[in-house]
């Protein structure tokens, strides 16, 4: 996981992207990660998203132009919430 995060950070730095680590609320089973991931990838400018049920978190790589609000709206439309930004 650490290597993947490092790789994503490196990619983000090289390509002018930003990495968000988000806390996700409302997931009640592992299959929910699919819906959250799909919602995040549907936001224009989001390049990659990894969602983890156990940690209730998402790691998102996105263009600099992508806002937290856009991701919050997209996730909320599927019945879940972004409850906190862990880091960006």
């Amino acid at each position, binding site marked *: 996981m650490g290597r993947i995060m490092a790789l994503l950070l490196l990619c983000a730095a090289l390509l002018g992207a930003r990495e968000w680590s988000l806390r996700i609320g409302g997931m009640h089973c*592992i299959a929910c990660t699919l819906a959250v991931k799909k919602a995040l990838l549907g936001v224009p400018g989001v390049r990659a998203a990894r969602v983890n049920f156990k940690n209730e978190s998402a790691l998102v790589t996105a263009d600099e132009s992508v806002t937290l609000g856009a991701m919050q709206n997209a996730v909320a439309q599927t019945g879940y919430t972004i409850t906190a930004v862990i880091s960006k």
Partner: protein
Amino acid sequence: MTRRTFITHTAAATTLCLTPSFAAEQKKGPETLALYELRWSFDLSHHGGDVSLWIPLPSRISGFQEILKTGWRTDAAESYESEANRYSARTFYAHWGKSAPSKTLELSLTVALRDRQCNWRPQRICPETIEESKAFLAPSAHLPTDGAVARISALIVGAEKEPLKKARRIYDWIVDNSYRDESVMGCGTGSPNAMLAELEKNGHMGGKCLDMSALCVALMRASGIPSREVMGIRVGESRLSAAFGAGETITKAQHCKVEFFTPQLGWIPCDPADITKLVLKEGIEKSSPRARALAEKFFGFWENNWMALNHARDFDLFPANAQGMLDSFGYPYAEVEEEYLDPFDPASYRYAFRSAKGIL
């Protein structure tokens, strides 16, 4: 058929006929026995990265389900069978490293199945079995027994004290108030509270087998009846209705039933969800004689074209996965670079289950 196969299959049929472990549930006749050869194929080569795969396997159920053969061929770096989880759910695990050029697995199973029909005659149930059944009264993450579940359970059961009659009231209530919703993915999410919230809002509840079975189990547990979902898969045609059967391709034939326990009869099967499927597929009314007759039959019965996998719910896999607790285990579960692989899309996942009826 080779001589050895014939002997093995004949021995299995004999075992299923004679094993008396569920003495309250005997049913005989050639049509009640069936043999199936199953072949489950996975080709995960196109998934780049580290891949881990957990597959639910059928377990022996004394008198009703005998596993005659389990075999596999794989190029996985690691692969083994295990029952090291809270429910002793039989599991096949395989792991491929990131650089593996090919990631394939072929599982083959031979199972003998028998109809399970409760005859409703009290029998002696050993104290250990009664004690073990109490574990299936407890709530779990997806099976609450308080709040709306407790309130509705009390309304359904009323003043009834007899466990069998309480169970029947709950079963009938689910059949009466739910409908099959084909838009639901897989077997559903199995959330009793979601079902009850929909009932309160719309006056009826839509879902699939895991949704209705989970609600049935939660309501029964709340009324003091040990109960559990049984995940399984349809492996052949039904003698009763096309709605209950499957063809040779059974990749999407998963189905969940319910078992409940009484100290006089032991574990008893029932299946409210399949009645809602019958009504939808045959286009008949729930009040029709056919639907009513099958609803009556499915309280205490399961047919030999369905193979039970496990009754695991809200549990940790072995070896541990990255995503955490699994809510149910009827579909293969895989992670690619620790991310969940969608089992409801077998074409992208690239797995296929096939079944062929054997000769007994």
